[in-house]
């Protein structure tokens, strides 16, 4: 059975952009180990020569024209949704 260490949980949290509290790290360690322990049953299946199914109605790429479609949503409306902004842009902490 898969062993999940505390470091593994912290690594997964980092990959997932989650800054976990300590007590939550502990409980997630147990939960993730149990869940992976359950889903591991799939390893019993012989799937050699079987193609995976990612899409269930047989669609492949669906193309559309590369043209602007007006969905009736303005820049102002979208900007108003940002939690921190200036008059014409979204504010973020310094990146570089």
């Amino acid at each position, binding site marked *: 059975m898969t062993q999940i260490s505390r470091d593994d*949980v912290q690594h*997964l*949290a980092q*990959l*997932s*952009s*989650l*800054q*976990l*509290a300590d007590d*939550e790290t502990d*409980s*997630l360690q147990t*939960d*993730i180990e*149990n*869940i*992976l322990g*359950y*889903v*591991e*049953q*799939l*390893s019993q*299946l012989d*799937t050699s020569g*079987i*193609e*995976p*199914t*990612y*899409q*269930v*109605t047989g*669609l492949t790429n*669906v193309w*559309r024209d590369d043209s602007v*479609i007006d*969905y*009736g*949503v303005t820049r102002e*409306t*979208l900007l108003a*949704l*940002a*939690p*921190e902004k200036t008059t014409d842009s*979204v504010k*973020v*902490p*310094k*990146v570089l």
Partner: protein
Amino acid sequence: MVKISDYNDISAVEAVQQALDKVAASESYHALLSLTKERALERAAAVDAGEITGKLAGVPFVVKDNFLAFGAPTTAASKILENFQAPLQATAVERLEAEGAICIGKANLDAFAHGGSTENSAYGVTKNAIDQTRVAGGSSGGSAVVTALDIVPFALGTDTGGSIRQPASFNGVVGVKPTYGTVSRYGVVAMASSTDTIGTFATTADDASLVMAIMAGKDERDMTTLPDFFGAEVLKPAQKIGIIREFMSDDVDEEVRDRVIEYAEKLKTAGHIVEEVNLPMIKYGVGMYYIIVPAEISSNLARYDGIRYGVRAQNVQTLAELYGRSRDEGFVTENKRRIMIGSYVLSSGYFDAYYQQAQKARTLLINEFNALFETYDALIGPVSPTPAFRIGENAEDPVKMYLADIMTVSASLAGVPAISVPAGTTSDGLPVGVQIIGQQKSDAQLLALASSQEEN
């Protein structure tokens, strides 16, 4: 129970007001997160003035709070979208509004639709319509309860692995998970894109069919939508129906099995042939589902970053801290579990063993379904191994909670339609649902079959 046709002889304003009065009288269930009262009354007045007409003119309805709709915030029952004001409406809502229907409120759900009990809502649990000590089911728990309480004749939900069917069965109403691609998901909070579907709760199969037919059809804003196939169906006589043996084992509550057997007997009396069938891959359904769906969740929920919309954590210094803290504070534990499981199964080194293996197993499952549909028009079984469980009963053990999805996830993985129809109650009076599963695009035929079995 109220039906859509009951609204023919009543003014729209009166219909909306009645629904709002019922909401006020049903607050203890905590089925709704917000009301769109002002907009609803405005639209009702426009219907009464003859400015809005259509097949559902003046009929009130409710949407799960993961549908973008005007008149109230869209929270997905999460903190990160608290107060999020939708800049547009979901195609499903737009199509219903175009036929004159009036949205009166937004229903509670497990945050981001992750769960099967509505206990994962960031805003408190919804109580079962029949027994308030029990769960409403989930994730579309609120939508099921408002339908069961006769507040509205129909309510929209989303079903990714059972989130319409299971609460429908727990509250004694009809629930439809259509063929994948039937209804546009544009404007609905994405969970797992390869199995997310839009469907409805209603009190009769005919009403459900009417609502689905209005919502169905191609939408250029959701590239996975299928051309409209959801016409009125004439019931096919003498159907061959398979009862899924794997779902009738001793692990399933005896009274649930009894109700399914009684339903099968009724089908026989109506001239259909019912036989036991095997679907061995179905026992791997939960395993496949809890690899594939978290993988897709981890990707779809990456967009909630506290930057462009939603709630941003305060007093952060760096960008990484902004992401990490906004997401930690904005998601419930179940969201985090699924995102992290998704990150795990998609990681290099584990991708083949988990994600690819699950997608291959999915092919084997689909092959078994297809083989059965060569012979059978429909498959039946329970919706859930138990009637509604008690609030808190499964909350501490995620694997136990996931196993409650065992009967619903397989139809989702195969993209086939599955409906939940009321089939009586247990001796305690708790509703039991029968699930009817068909091949892709047989949705209307399944509902016609269900309709033919309804009393009166």
